[in-house]
């Protein structure tokens, strides 16, 4: 297999995997809708303010990734850029956990006697998103190390490109989840 074809194949593998992950979340959201329609004691909740902050952070991180290709074209180092995105990713994760803390302070629990299906769904949806994000953070860690070692060039940055696609996907997914949980 020549390199161009190998790259295409790897990208397509990722795209098909993203379709599959989308189905996972689509089914979760469908379950949310079905349950909300069925349950008498559905507890309405307001989203933690930390989730608003984390939304801004993940959008910013995604936007920064768009500067990578132009930087590589100019032959500039991308280490700083990738490192900032990694830090923003960690910050997003931190704010998600803080958001859960805020939820428990409001009396919304994942499980236990005081819990409600509505709250459980909120935790599960955000938790599974965060678990997927861990994969992205691993990718960003590797990309950060490689960019520090100047291993990327405009003709050779597939790993970073794949990480970026995955990260953008996670951003869009989070925006959908956030909007859904906020307004549905």
């Amino acid at each position, binding site marked *: 297999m020549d390199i161009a074809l190998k790259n295409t194949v790897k990208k397509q593998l990722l795209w098909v995997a993203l379709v*599959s992950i989308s*189905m996972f979340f689509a089914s979760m959201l469908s379950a949310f809708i079905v349950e909300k329609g069925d349950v008498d004691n559905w507890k309405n909740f307001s989203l933690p303010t930390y989730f608003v902050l984390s939304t801004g952070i993940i959008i910013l991180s995604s936007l920064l990734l768009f500067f990578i290709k132009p930087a590589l074209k100019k032959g500039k180092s991308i280490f700083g850029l990738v490192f900032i995105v990694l830090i923003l990713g960690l910050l997003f994760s931190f704010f998600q956990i803080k958001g859960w803390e805020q939820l428990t302070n409001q009396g919304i629990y994942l499980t236990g006697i005081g819990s409600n299906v509505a709250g459980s769904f909120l935790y599960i949806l955000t938790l599974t998103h965060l678990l997927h994000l861990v994969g992205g953070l691993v990718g960003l860690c590797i990309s950060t190390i490689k960019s520090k070692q100047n291993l990327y060039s405009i003709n050779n940055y597939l790993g970073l490109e794949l990480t970026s696609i995955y990260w953008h996907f996670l951003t869009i997914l989070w925006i959908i989840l956030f909007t859904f949980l906020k307004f549905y």
Partner: protein
Amino acid sequence: MSEHHKESFITKYVFTMDHKMIAKQFLITGMFMAVVGMLMSAIFRVQLANPGESSILYSLLPGAWLNDAGGLNPDKYLALVTMHGTILVFWVLTAGLSGTFANFLIPLQIGARDMASGFLNMLSYWFFFIATVVLLSSLFVETGPASGGWTIYPPLSALPQAIPGSGTGMTLWLISITLFVVGSLLGGLNYIVTILNLRTIGMTMQRLPLTIWALLITAILGVLSFPVLLSCGLLLIFDRSFGTSFYLSDIIINGEALHNEGGSPILFEHLFWFLGHPEVYIILLPALGIVSEVIAVNSRKPIFGYKAMVGALLLIAFLSFIVWGHHMFMTGMNPFLGSVFTFTTLLIAIPSAVKVFNYLATLWRGNIRFTPAMLFAIGTVSAFITGGLTGIILGDSALDINVHDTYFVVGHFHIVMGLSAIYGMFAGVYHWFPKMYGRMMNKNLGYIHFWGTFICAYGVFFPMHFLGLAGLPRRYYSNSAFPMFDGLSDINELITFFALAGAIVQVFFLFNFFYSIFKGTKSSQNPWKSNTLEWTTPVERIHGNWPGELPVVTRWAYDYSKPGAEEDFILQTEPLKEGEIEH
């Protein structure tokens, strides 16, 4: 150039990245699990014929599974039924069938060296293998394996204290199926990307053999539906292990009121059957793809209506996503919604009928060779028709309600899904065995295997429809406690007789398979005089499939008995003659 290289025992047979060897790994593991699943069914059929009595077959079971009189314990009967369903649906007919033939045929028939990612392919098998070990290990836990049916409906599956099988056995079931799904997804990703990108020069989508079309669409179905089973399972794991209430509400168990409220077991059914119905076609479509190839080759005729066959596959796949409610007519569904699901379900009859018609039209006036593979392929079409007809009854909400959860349903799905798919799998094994092992299977043993299986399978599943029409519920440990079913005990004994006979017949296949691997007559390069690319590879297995350059395709896969041709087959690599028109 070929990618063949020196391999150690470990890289050749264990952690191999060669698609052909991975296919064999799937096949052998699938066959092993088929034997396990079949023995389970033999055991519970003996219980149904002689309720509560001891049997020599029970010596295969751990002692704790039997009561003092040597009979089978009721909870272990339920465990056997559950494990039989799980193993046959997922391990044999999903991984065993799709895993084997997708891995084996995709690179060979599209003209590729291997799968897009050999590593992911290897991982796919090893996830499947570990899932197998975890599932089988549940047979040896004190409380027994999962027992709530292969559909694992809550609350039985969600409350570890519900029945013995709801404990550790259910936990292992969930771990196992999670690993299984991950393995299936890795495989599916690979199949799709390989077919879309690695076709050799000239292998356009319009020239793909129908096996590849079927495997492509199956992979798409898997990638879209298995994640739903994952989310369904994840919510269940949270309910049973962490105390959430997604599927649970207002439960009192052993006098104790549980805190769960607000959940609904119906939600589980929605999620489960959103996978569950496409799963039927994940099982069936590869078999139909194999049958298309085997029937065309052995009729010495082009497949009738190639484009219609592809269209029918696509339509079946699409419809399979909007019919899941027909498994839930008894859940208090709004009758209007029920009629919508009835409508979408009955629509599947149209592409199914197209496929059956085209198979028959291909056979019509063909120069038919009744090889064992061909007999099994025709058997698939036969079972697809027989089972499909009762599907019309079960797809109609007004009729389904009368026979819901009876043996009518058991008879229906075993014929339409079980028999069709397993016959397709047998057809594939007999047909591609020479390519897999370089030797031929024994024909006469193949004929005994086919006729024995065909007669016994109908002997088992046909009478079940009458049991169901008489109201006999499925999954009951014993029917002797109900006087109204006393008159049906003879039929149950007859079914058990055929089940045991059918199991014995499989010994002919197993002997033939393993004996032929080592002692079968050596195969020529193209023993069936087939057109497709796999028969242009050398008989000896090499990693990379073709020793030199990849073949170039110049025609479709079904130029059989073409007027003016010297022989009754033309390889896909043979250039069009001057003035020759492609089909």
